[in-house]
């Protein structure tokens, strides 16, 4: 029942939007309308026929909707009571309003005035349905200072190359690099600069809060035409065939590791301990993680990584004269 009920309900929603869509535009082409609704022309014609067939039988039989689509152009000559779209549902109003309020927090978005006008208009149009949207919020981390944002925007607008001093925590390095900016991304509440890194000769993401220094260069940004933007819907972590497979066990106090890093698997070991498997192109950050965890973590594999970590700890302790 549910499958068929869902499709009937979905189709009904579409039909109730289709009539006002045409009415508000006076006349529209079949092809354009099909594209706007994500339908084939054949499916659209089927929808139009269904609308045209609606009949009320009592007290007198009459057809409330009159339309034609001759010559590829749809005209609704009588829409009766469904000439306007249905109000926004709570979920619908919330989806848009939560997203818009989040955008208002995004650093560097120029069009704040359009944003606040649109929020006000939607709140008014949604009426009561806008209420619950204030109970959902997405916070965006503010990068340190507006200077970074201003420089990136400037470089994007004038298509200039940027010079970055960028902190890489996994290696504890402050790196210098020239980057041709592509766009600003906000994923998982954090802002990133996406650009063509001339040092790595590839598309890289730079977290704005890790940019230690930034300057716009005189050189023009030259992003190679075949540079592929990161598909943010697939997550920011991209496994590769060259990755090292790491197994690490953590106590209850170290379980945050499974939330914080992309893991391939997490297996309960009892008493709160967890065995985590992950893969990474660079194990330097795992060494630092193991030192941070102390007795709340133990790297199981690979063997050479385990040995390195013991060496790190021994060397560190020797500086305290208790190694």
């Amino acid at each position, binding site marked *: 029942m549910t499958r068929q009920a869902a499709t009937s309900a979905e189709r009904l929603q579409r039909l109730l939007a289709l009539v006002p869509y045409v009415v508000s535009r006076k006349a529209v082409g079949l092809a354009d309308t099909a594209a*706007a609704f994500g339908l084939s022309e054949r499916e659209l014609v089927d929808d139009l026929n269904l609308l045209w067939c609606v009949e009320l039988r009592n007290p007198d039989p009459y057809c409330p909707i009159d339309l034609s689509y001759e010559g590829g152009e749809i005209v609704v000559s009588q829409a009766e009571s469904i000439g306007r*779209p*249905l109000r926004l549902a709570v979920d619908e109003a919330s989806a848009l309003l939560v997203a818009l309020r989040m955008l208002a927090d995004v650093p560097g978005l120029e069009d704040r005035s359009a944003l606040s006008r649109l929020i006000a208009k939607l709140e008014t149009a949604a009426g009561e349905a806008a209420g619950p949207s204030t109970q959902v919020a997405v916070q965006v981390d503010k990068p340190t200072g507006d200077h970074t944002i201003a420089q990136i925007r400037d470089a994007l607008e004038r298509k200039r190359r940027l010079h970055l001093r960028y902190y890489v925590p996994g290696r504890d390095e402050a790196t210098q690099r020239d980057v041709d900016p592509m766009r600003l991304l906000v994923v998982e509440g954090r802002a990133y600069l996406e650009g063509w890194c001339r040092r790595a000769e590839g598309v890289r993401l730079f977290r704005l809060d890790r940019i230690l220094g930034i300057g716009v260069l005189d050189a023009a940004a030259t992003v190679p035409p075949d540079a592929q933007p990161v598909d943010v819907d697939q997550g920011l972590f991209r496994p590769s065939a060259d990755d090292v497979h790491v197994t690490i066990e953590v106590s209850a106090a170290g379980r945050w590791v499974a939330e914080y890093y992309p893991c391939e698997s997490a297996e309960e070991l009892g008493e709160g301990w967890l065995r985590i498997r992950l893969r990474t192109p660079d194990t330097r950050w795992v060494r630092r993680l193991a030192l941070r965890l102390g007795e709340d973590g133990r790297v199981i594999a690979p063997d050479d990584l385990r040995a390195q970590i013991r060496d790190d700890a021994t060397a560190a302790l020797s500086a305290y004269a208790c190694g």
Partner: protein
Amino acid sequence: MSRRKTERLLSLVVCLLSTRRYLTAEQIRQAVAGYPEQPEAFKRMFERDKEELRELGIPLETGSLSPLDGEDIGYRVQRQAYELPELRLEADEAAVLGLAARVWRHAELAGAAAGALLKLRAAGIDTADRDGDADARQGIEPRVHTTEPAFGPLWEAVRDRRPVTFAYRAAGRSEPQTRELEPWGVVNRHGRWYVAGRDRARDAVRVFRLGRIEGDVRFSGPPRSVTVPAGTDVREVVRTWDAVPPRENTAVLQVRPGAGYGLRRYATGPPEPDPSPAGESPTAGWDTISVPYSDVGWFADHVASFGPDVVVADPPDLRDAVIRRLKGVLT
């Protein structure tokens, strides 16, 4: 079958919108094609249809036909309650609308965002939401993910004001505990979702991380049985809960040249070189920096992660905590 049902539901909507007065179930059966003659079968089908219309957000009203005849129940949909009010957008407003709808792509509210956009287009608004349009204009691409399975049921609970129960494994705990919560709101912070509300057993405000909820979230009460206290700002509740305490302590650290950037960033002044002659101290020639911190345990974890590149000179409790971490690695 499905087509006939769609036709019937559509006729029902048109019929209910076209009437000013309430129509009885029998009048509706006569006007709308597709209902069975048999009274019980009709009643069942009509009940289901009414439920479907309500789920779509169609404001179906129930009322009595006349004050004298209170038993005769009738139905109608008022145009004013049904119709989206007149809405006109400027071109720049329509552009950000397309961007907003993309925020939820592939996430929990993606369908709702698409539904909203469909209605706004039906109201005559042209939105730029095709691939490439919006980001080309703004140079910006924002996304929210809802990978936590608890997001869907908790949003419903917040929306419908229903209490919930779930198993929760708090940080550092080895076993999950059952909690009952009156949810006030869900907030995404640093890319993670949190729910804030009143914990019934503890009778206190609590914040839970959705990623630490294990198993299903269950409703433990009917809709509209939760009252959010007036003036509650859920963002603020979560921010307060998650806030880093003020950094009132200062550590004196010795840092190997060319290393320790994760600590140097927060140093209060320029580094001072360790004056010890070479060979006399393991940190001869290193930089000495002062870094403010709040919690000894947390900061010791952080310092330990730099391994042999950073040594704590002061205070002693931080120094001891770091040594403990490092020894823990070797056990």
